[in-house]
């Protein structure tokens, strides 16, 4: 069983489209995250949710909207996609919101905007 699973693994789309990436974790964790990894391999946190509640929202355009229907799921919806959104998006989870909790990452979604 995959602990943190994301779908789709690859996403190729045109500029201006709207797309969603889904994430599910079966670890029973309370906290989930979205990270963006650009072409230079920089890993940057985008959002953090704890028990369906938004905790962290780093400087991310409001075209990105996370949604957490329950604590095991954190989906990412992106409106009006731009070329600069092309990156690998990783979902992650941790036991709770306390510091020093290790992160479990999903396998990533490679988004290519043409």
């Amino acid at each position, binding site marked *: 069983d995959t602990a943190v699973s994301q779908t789709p693994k690859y996403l190729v789309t045109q500029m201006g489209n709207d797309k969603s990436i889904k994430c599910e974790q079966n670890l029973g964790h309370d906290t989930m995250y979205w990270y963006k990894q650009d072409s230079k391999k*920089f890993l940057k*946190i985008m959002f953090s949710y704890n028990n369906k509640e938004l905790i962290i929202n780093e400087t991310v355009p409001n075209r990105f909207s996370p949604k957490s229907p329950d604590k095991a799921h954190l989906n990412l919806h992106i409106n009006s996609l731009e070329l600069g959104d092309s990156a690998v998006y990783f979902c992650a989870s941790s036991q709770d919101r306390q510091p020093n909790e290790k*992160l479990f*990452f999903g396998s990533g979604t490679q988004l290519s905007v043409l």
Partner: protein
Amino acid sequence: QQPVQSPQAVILREGEDAVINCSSSKALYSVHWYRQKHGEAPVFLMILLKGGEQKGHEKISASFNEKKQQSSLYLTASQLSYSGTYFCGTESLLGGANNLFFGTGTRLTVIP
């Protein structure tokens, strides 16, 4: 808030040792280390919580100097399986949550 890692890349022969450094301009609460193999997700290696703490994971260990706001990852007797990009992550308390800022990454290549 992003920590800086050095070197950016290193090539080793099997059996050689390497050190990867991570430094921050801000006071560090803790330091995480992760390894990412090409095309895969980052995988947790270890967390260091206290200044001066040193931890080990097989032949990979790390130290954390809280005063210098630095951490170092030590890889001894490197194996081919050690190849990958190593990231340090430093924590700040934002809203009480685990807000991990990752470093710039160090690409390690181990050759036979």
